[in-house]
């Protein structure tokens, strides 16, 4: 049986999180949802995901802080991160890329299929994702 890529969705809106889970599961991902910053850090410590979908406005710890912590950890910094937020100011987008996000998408502007495409593309192009694909 083929090992599924593990996607960690860090999203506090349960409806959006559930919709994303259903979609990504339907295209072959294993999905875990973290509804706040603490849950996200716990999930990261529990299992290393192949790719992370990260919201910014989150309870307990915001997405930028989570990303910053990931990028100083020698293991976590390998994980490709797609920021999926509805904040679309230049300031937020620039900050996301500056912290090391692989992509920054505005959720409302993207269809679910486009979202899957972007996440899959980023995962497949990253060294972390390539290692996973090579080890499958």
């Amino acid at each position, binding site marked *: 049986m083929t090992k599924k890529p593990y996607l960690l969705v860090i999203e506090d*809106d349960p*409806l*959006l999180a559930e*919709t*994303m889970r*259903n*979609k990504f599961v339907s295209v072959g991902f294993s999905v875990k949802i973290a509804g706040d910053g603490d849950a996200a850090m716990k999930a990261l410590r529990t299992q290393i995901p192949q790719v992370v979908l990260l919201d910014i*406005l989150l309870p307990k710890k915001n997405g930028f802080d989570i990303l910053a912590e990931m990028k100083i950890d020698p293991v976590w910094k390998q994980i490709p991160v797609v920021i999926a937020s*509805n*904040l*679309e*100011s*230049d300031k937020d987008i620039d900050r996301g890329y500056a912290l090391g996000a692989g992509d920054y998408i*505005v*959720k*409302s*502007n993207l*269809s*679910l*299929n486009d979202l899957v495409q972007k996440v899959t593309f980023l995962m497949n192009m990253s060294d972390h994702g390539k290692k996973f694909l090579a080890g499958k």
Partner: protein
Amino acid sequence: MSFKLKIFILVLLSTLPLIVFILSLTYREFHSSQTAKLTQLETITQLVAAEHKQVTEGARQLLIAIASTPAFRSPASPSCSAFLASLRSQYVRYVNFGVVDSSGHVLCAADLTLAVNNPPSSTLINQTLASHNFTLGSYYQIKEDDGAVINFGYPLSSTQMVYASLSLEWVSDFVSTLPTPPELVINILDQHGTVLARRPEISTALGQNFATDSLIQQIIYDNRGTTVRAGIDRVTRLYAFSSIGEDQKTFIAAGLPQSTIYADIQSTLITSIFALILVTTIAAGIALKIGDILIVKQVESLQAIDKLKDEFVSLASHQLRSPMTAIRWLSESLLESKSNLTRNQQTIITKIHTTTLRLIHLTSSLLNISRLESGTLTPHLKVMTLSDIMDPILTELRPMFRRSVIHLKVQIPHNTTISTDPNLLSEIIRVILDNSLKYSPRNSQVEIKARTSNARILIYVKDHGIGIPIEAQTHLFTRFYRADNARLYSPNGNGLGLYLAHLITTKLDGTLTWKSLPGKSTTLTLTLPNKV
């Protein structure tokens, strides 16, 4: 016009009454100074006229005294001339004394030569002998001298007359005893306009006739009065003039240069102008300072409001987007599982999806408009080819054109590069193409083409749709405005598209213009600077 400039102009305007006041004050001072000077000059001429009477009376007394002297019982004797010579040395104002007979022969004189060369006029002799009384002649120029004299006669007998020649210098001597300004000019004229004496002296004027001079004419004509005129030396002066003597054959004119009045008011004027400049400067300084404070307060207040508005719009937009994203994604999920839905359900869900997309787009537009209006949206310039910017939009929109059966004709040069914010330019193109799509009939054509010209890039979008009515054309970029035909043709618009496109174009230092034939076609031209 800037706020500060307005304040400055207001301050200047507020000083206008002050300027008028100063000018009126100066004029009054000028007028008053002129009147005072004319009065002073009139006084001088009157004093000279009065002194002339004194001098005449002095001459009369002197001649009566001479006539009663025994030496004149035989005027031909040498003692007569000696006596008169001694008199002349005592009365220095007199040029000569002499005795003449009725024919004008000089019988004796203090200065015989002078007497022979300048005898008293026959008129004076005849009048004196006929009246048996003291008689005065007129001033006239004597031959040996540049000076003028007047002869007084007194009868010694029925055929002889003693006379005294008085030099006109007495006028100058007299005036010098008066407290007069140094610029004072005195002219003594006879009734023919000949200058008999002048103080200060001008040798070229003495004895010259100035009958054609307007000042001299006025003096002779009016006898007495004041005037402001150029004199015989062409200097404009204030003059007071009067006849001296009762025969009105000799005139005195006392003049002061007009420049002395200016000198009088100069100090007042300079002080006033200096005070005005000082007051204006201080007032402008205070006004600008207050203006600064007001501007700063106003700007701070506006900035605070703008920030609040920005934060509100941003937060509201974010809060609205989450549920809209959920509806969008859920409807997309439903539409993907078509097999489980009836056709009617599919139609309804498609409508939900389309409406949600419109809502999302509207929210984005409002957010962008808010940022553009508050100036918080900064273009991020990138150098890209025009086709790299256009291709994704065209890819996104082509399916919609196909669905509406509208042919999209694209002529974008592949090698044209542009330095611009690709996202903002994309938004403009999206708005324009979206409008063309919305307002064009089936089977029509929409053309988009671009070209470069003089460091500019021009992008044209031409459709063959409903066009823009003439009355709507001036409102094209007005927020929430929709033309009547647009409302009828496509009720779902929000009137923000072209307003947003225009705002963005301005932000990119470009222009957005239109040409439309109502009912036939519309061409929108986007012109952007190409700094590459």
